[in-house]
């Protein structure tokens, strides 16, 4: 048992997952992740570098990944905004890497030290164009460790940038943690040479480990050669990588449920907010209301089937998040008319109390009745 901070758990998880490159730029409330990596990497022969800005940080991470290292960066809202172009570049070039965004109140410099969940849509859609996206969240310090490992595993498996959304509170919170056993996935190496195409494959060849490679943010063939005017080729490529996540959506989906089996009312939330929601479930159950909690750890690809299945068995759904209505859009789109979906959101840098969430569920019940 160890008393550790959320950001420390993130660094420990990254090291456990085999991360050997970190490039970053200081920003509250994510900075401790880079401070820890600056200490943890050198003894393992890993590389730590503080870059000149967040744009450079993610660029260096991508460069390192093409050198064969598991690589990550960590930032918060303003830095995450700067990284959007390179998130798109990483997706286009099928580059495994992990980007941690410890969310704070925005927009702009906003509320630097206060928690928020306002980057949910940016994490999915912030970069221009269509792309596959995996976005994870965590609710406890132990979660942060486990989900950081999961982020690396997914990024290595699907050759994608994976975003892990934390928040100012979770980043700075300390909890007693028994670090769990985890499984680590390593990058698949190309098999026999000759037929290997560097793109569209789960196997990955780094620079210097085989014949020369071509990597470009232009639309390209699976050989890597640019096909900058071939629209149908690009669409085929995008659909292939998006479909791969669709096919594996159930295995990519990480979630926890409380009382889902007999629920008449569903609270859907994620991240730090799930902690208050668990308290609300307890209170409401004590009152005799059958309430269930769906706590998503995977936000994107959005676990549509899971949400629809649960929503169709309840009288109403309350989506709770620290923003003015982001994931609720995906929930409403998925649920359709299967159940009324209400939103409980705020953007004032505060958390919801269990009482506030319980009141929203009660109000939903009254409205429904």
């Amino acid at each position, binding site marked *: 048992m160890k008393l550790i901070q959320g950001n420390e758990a993130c660094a420990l998880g990254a090291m456990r997952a085999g991360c*050997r490159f970190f490039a970053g730029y200081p920003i509250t409330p994510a900075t401790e992740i880079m401070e820890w990596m600056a200490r943890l990497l050198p003894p393992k022969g890993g590389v730590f*570098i503080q870059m*000149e800005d967040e744009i450079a940080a993610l660029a260096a991470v991508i460069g390192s990944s093409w050198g064969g290292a598991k690589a990550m960066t960590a930032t918060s809202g303003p830095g995450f905004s700067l990284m959007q172009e390179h998130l798109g570049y990483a997706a286009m070039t099928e580059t495994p890497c992990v980007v941690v965004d410890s969310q704070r109140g925005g927009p702009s410099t906003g509320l630097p030290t206060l928690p928020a969940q306002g980057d949910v849509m940016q994490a999915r859609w912030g970069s221009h164009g269509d792309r596959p996206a995996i976005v994870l969240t965590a609710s406890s310090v132990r979660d942060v460790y486990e989900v950081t490992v999961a982020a690396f595993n997914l990024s290595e498996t699907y050759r994608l940038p994976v975003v892990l959304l934390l928040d100012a509170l979770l980043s700075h919170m300390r909890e007693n943690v028994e670090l769990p056993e985890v499984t680590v996935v390593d990058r698949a190496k190309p098999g026999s040479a000759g037929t290997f195409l560097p793109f569209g494959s789960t196997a990955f060849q780094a*620079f210097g480990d085989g014949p*020369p490679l071509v990597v470009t943010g232009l639309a390209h063939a699976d050989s890597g050669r640019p096909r900058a005017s071939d629209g149908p080729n690009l669409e085929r490529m995008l659909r292939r990588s998006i479909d791969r996540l669709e096919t594996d959506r159930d295995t990519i989906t990480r979630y926890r449920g409380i009382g889902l089996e007999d629920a008449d009312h569903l609270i859907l939330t994620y991240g730090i907010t799930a902690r208050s929601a668990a308290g609300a479930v307890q209170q409401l159950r004590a009152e005799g209301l059958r309430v269930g909690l769906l706590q998503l750890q995977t936000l994107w690809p959005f676990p549509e089937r899971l949400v629809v299945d649960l929503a169709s068995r309840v009288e109403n759904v309350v989506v709770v998040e620290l923003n003015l209505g982001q994931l609720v859009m995906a929930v409403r789109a998925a649920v359709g008319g299967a159940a009324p979906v209400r939103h409980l959101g705020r953007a004032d840098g505060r958390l919801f109390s269990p009482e506030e969430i319980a009141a929203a569920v009660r109000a939903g019940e009254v409205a429904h009745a």
Partner: protein
Amino acid sequence: MPRVGQDLLQYLQLDAMPHVWCPGCGHGQVARGLATALERLSVPLERLVLVGGIGCSGRTPFYFNANAMHTTHGRALAFATGLKLTRPELTVITTMGDGDTAAIGGNHFIHACRRNIDITAIVYNNGIYGMTGGQQAPTTPRGARSVTTPLGSLEPPFDIVQLALAAGATFVARSTTFDFDELPALIVDAVRHPGFAVVEVLTQCPTYYGRMNELGDAVAMLDYERDLTMPQREITKEGLAGRRPLGVFRREIAPEYTAQYAELCARQAKRS
């Protein structure tokens, strides 16, 4: 004048031709200088990574048989830094334009100079944005016309050599496409230099810069380059007379980043 022989063709990716460069563009001469330098360096092509930015110059890596990483506008050096730190044994050369280097990527450029990481940056300076159709660059001379300065540029241009020197690059040189016989030797020295090396090459853009500033065709622009510059060895007591000096301006051995980092790791590993 020697033709591009079989020896140089082996460095080129002929499948990627025709290239995007306009007739008369100087970038092909820079590419030829690079190919000639590679031949002299005899770096195995699978151990060489050419990292391009965005723009006409950024396309260079596609035309070589080496590893090619075509990155984002201005950021080639940041990608190259992550790669070089992870794989110090690879030879990393960036090809960037003047806009890449001194406008959108100015921050990455000065910090790469400061860090002294063993990367060679070849900066193609044609004083204009070619790929997007002839807009003002941070290197466009005062008074020069571009499509975004139709009445003449009001801004003083950056001198990339001075910028690199001030930011701490340990090898800094300048050449032109007029002097392309001397360019390979400069690139060879830059790549062999154990630290961050900058080679600025003045190159002609007859399509946009030349046309808008009435400098004539590519051949006339080469003469213009000749008259704009002066090899350091030819500088007399009268000085440069407003011309830009050519040659090597700094060649200094200083602690190199990846070497220092390896030492730091070795010390840490011993301690723990």
